[in-house]
């Protein structure tokens, strides 16, 4: 079993690029990641590529333009966790010794779609009118009910993450919003308004994974992979708790155990803030605070840059937008930049250990379809 490291990381800026083919975004990210890794192309022996809606053979369509025409390519679909699942598979391939140096990419192009993303047409709840915003609206409604909380406080997630992204050239939105603006935006599903929901965007991200031994041999600046955890949803026909995301709780326990760290050891986290309330639930699920303490943690400033556990200093999905297949890899790109001390105005001082969390996929009776958690260290 090899220790696994990341030696290259890059992303194409997330945004709305109606005229630009998805493969162009992928090619830009992959070429930049290979350049960042400074490895010979001939040493890359496989690629794992995640996309939700990029279509068949997306990886091959990209690799032929990147000087990597004949390596084995695996295309991966796991909804919002597609890219981070591709990374999980790449890490497993290196850890097991099947491959030594592997390329990962995640990408999607969704800014042209309108309305809310539907569930698959054969999903029971989806067929009866459930959409992702409606599910998160129910999580928010029940959370506010259980903890006597105020939706205006939940809106602070949007305010914080948009502010974090002011200096992030890779973000879709680089402007601040106020709580009043969040609350006054168009109603989507009570109590959530439009700015409580992430926007779809277009984007791609890529990393190069190799063994620690190989990184030493070529003198690469390596970021260590302490844990790479993938969970699928557990089917629960009974009274599952909508305010505690079971799949993230389970994944976090496994990831911390694999990494040999505890939640208190995490210096910063990139979490799946597809909806404002989601970030609050993940503070609790990842152990940054106790059940019901998410909003006090948020209001204390602990999760803001400069606080004790900064969350989504990249701006998260709220500011970057959400190209599902790209999101999980882009979170890792941010974590690598932070751990290298290259994050500029949004640098978390002294960051040694970072966590990325990407979950999604609506399936009846499951908290989520998939959840990936990566713990990285310098």
């Amino acid at each position: 079993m090899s220790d696994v490291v990341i030696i290259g990381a890059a992303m194409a800026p997330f945004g709305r690029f109606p005229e630009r083919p998805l493969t162009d975004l992928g090619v830009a990210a992959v070429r930049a990641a290979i350049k960042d890794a400074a490895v010979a192309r001939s040493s890359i022996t496989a690629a794992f590529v995640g996309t939700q809606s990029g279509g068949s053979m997306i990886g091959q369509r990209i690799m032929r333009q990147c000087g990597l025409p004949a390596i084995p390519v695996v295309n991966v679909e796991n909804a919002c966790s597609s890219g981070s699942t591709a990374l999980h598979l790449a890490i497993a391939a290196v850890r097991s010794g099947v491959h030594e140096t592997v390329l990962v990419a995640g990408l999607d192009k969704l800014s042209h779609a309108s309305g809310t993303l539907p569930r698959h047409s054969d999903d029971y709840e989806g067929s009866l009118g459930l959409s992702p915003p409606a599910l998160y609206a129910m999580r928010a409604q029940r959370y506010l009910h259980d903890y006597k909380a105020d939706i205006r406080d939940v809106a602070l997630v949007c305010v914080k993450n948009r502010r974090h992204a002011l200096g992030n050239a890779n973000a879709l939105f680089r402007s601040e919003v106020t709580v009043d603006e969040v609350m006054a935006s168009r109603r989507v599903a009570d109590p959530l308004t439009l700015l409580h929901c992430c926007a779809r965007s277009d984007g791609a991200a890529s990393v190069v994974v190799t063994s620690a031994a190989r990184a030493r041999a070529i003198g690469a600046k390596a970021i260590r992979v302490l844990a790479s955890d993938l969970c699928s949803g557990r089917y629960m026909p009974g009274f599952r708790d909508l305010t505690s995301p079971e799949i993230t709780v389970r994944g976090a326990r496994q990831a911390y155990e694999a990494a040999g760290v505890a939640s208190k050891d995490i210096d910063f986290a990139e979490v799946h803030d597809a909806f404002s309330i989601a970030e609050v639930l993940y503070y609790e699920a990842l152990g940054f605070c106790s059940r019901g303490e998410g909003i006090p943690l948020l209001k204390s400033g602990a999760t803001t840059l400069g606080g004790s556990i900064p969350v989504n200093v990249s701006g998260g999905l709220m500011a970057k937008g959400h190209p599902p297949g790209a999101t999980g890899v882009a979170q890792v790109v941010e974590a690598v930049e932070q751990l290298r001390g290259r994050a500029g105005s949004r640098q978390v001082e002294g960051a040694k250990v970072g966590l990325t969390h990407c979950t999604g996929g609506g399936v009846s009776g499951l908290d989520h379809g998939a959840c990936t958690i990566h713990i990285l260290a310098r």
Partner: protein
Amino acid sequence: MNAETIAPPSQIIAGDCWRETADGRIELLAARCTACGTHHLPHVPVCASCSKEEFATAALGPRGTLYAYTIVRMPPPGYAGEYAVGYVDFPEGVRVFGQIRIVPEVPLASGIPVGLEIATLFKRPDATPVIGYRFVPTAGGSPR
């Protein structure tokens, strides 16, 4: 049942999960595992609790308790307008998703009792009405 709502052409949705009783009520039908008693709605071929494959049909409720809800303000194509959805807990230990009739005099709240009715839930792109069960907040019910 209103004759207009069943005027053809129409489609029944989740038809194995509800029925109209002889006295005109709508009731939900779960699949109850004959080995461990776990109720499933929607039905599954293999029990999530014990992996056995034998089930009996079991009527739920008739009353359930609203666990969580939302009013969807940006309805997808095919919906007549804003609509409410929620999760309802039944005494048999199963939680069921569905649309909820918006009743002005009974505000939605976690803990209120709900009954059932049949309604047109949305329309297909070819305008075919889709008919299924829908929850109805029960007048006089107080939040638990």
